[in-house]
């Protein structure tokens, strides 16, 4: 084998390896970008999501159309939740902060699973502590039941010793892309970097 042939063979091998790598990377991302459906629920057939109608902390009616075209970060909670809810909303605020103006293409939601105690006025006062791009929504009880089924979230009233009650509720943040398709969740255990990576995938290409 002379030097020229050797070079050709070597470059050929390099090109083939690169092509394979590129293929693998694309195939890899392709698999990932398929919306991860919740385990075992695919057979239900209906995708997670759908229409809703709730009232925001400023008293406006908000439906799934109000913020169509933006990426959504959806969290369910209640204002009497002292531990996990304010911390998650503070974290969400910090994600918006980290993304700066890019995050204008996103909307965060706190959907109250305790409309009994969370009035519009309460939500307004509560949300003043968090990023302005996070909207609190109050569903009527019947709407909450319907929403929970369509978005596959869980909530339950749990009585406390003092005769009051607390709420069990889905802990993760649900993500929806700009076409309104469910694109995954951010769990509490996930790192900030991982969360930001997932959120950046909701942004228009070229914005990040």
């Amino acid at each position: 084998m002379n030097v020229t042939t050797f070079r050709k063979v070597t470059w050929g091998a390099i090109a083939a390896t690169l092509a394979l790598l590129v293929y693998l990377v694309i195939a890899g991302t392709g698999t990932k970008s398929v919306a991860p459906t919740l385990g075992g629920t695919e057979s239900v057939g209906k995708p997670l999501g759908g229409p809703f109608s709730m009232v925001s902390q400023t008293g406006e009616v908000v439906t799934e159309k109000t913020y169509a075209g933006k990426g959504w970060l959806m969290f369910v909670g209640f204002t009497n939740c002292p531990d996990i809810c304010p911390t998650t909303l503070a974290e969400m605020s910090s994600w918006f902060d980290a993304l700066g103006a890019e995050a204008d293409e996103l909307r965060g939601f706190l959907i109250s699973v305790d409309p009994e105690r969370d009035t519009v006025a309460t939500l307004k006062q509560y949300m003043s502590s968090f990023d302005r791009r996070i909207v609190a929504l109050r569903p009527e009880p019947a709407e909450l039941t319907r929403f929970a089924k369509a978005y596959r979230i869980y909530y339950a009233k749990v009585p406390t010793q003092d005769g009051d009650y607390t709420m069990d509720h889905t802990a993760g943040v649900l993500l929806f892309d700009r076409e309104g398709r469910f694109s995954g969740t951010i769990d509490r255990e996930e790192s900030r970097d991982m969360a930001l990576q997932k959120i950046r995938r909701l942004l228009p290409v070229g914005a990040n």
Partner: protein
Amino acid sequence: MIKNSFGMVALTAGALIICLQSASAQERPRHADAESKLVVEHAEVILALSGAKMLAGYITVWNGSKQQSDLVSVQSDDFASVSLHRTEVVDGVAKMRPIKEGIFIPGHAELLMKPGGIHMMLMAPTVDFKPGDKVDLLLAFADGASLSTTAITRPIGTKPIDHHHGSVD
């Protein structure tokens, strides 16, 4: 030289006796003594909406002794009651439940309270707190020992500091 060593031994023995005496002089509360090294290293109370009936608080307790300590309750004059709670995320669902059995802190280990884990629930504040205010807390342990500490109040929506033993914050 020999004389010096003898002096040292005598001094050490003397110091030891003083230690023993001071230990027996204050049998209770033993854990509050610096030498047993059960210390609250960090304490924060996160404020909620004004008029809120409950606030969450987070403390880090370092047990520098060899024995396990069992934290059974926390009290504060600024609240109607303080209870220990645990948030557990089970199958993606956050559930907050009171801790009735106390919290065991093994020797040379820390109790780190944090959101989504063990925390204090401070009910019905008697004071309208502002950020930076102080909250006096009294921790009670199963062996009768107690430990007092002061927590700082933080604004609503503050993520408590993840204070591990030895952290500077």
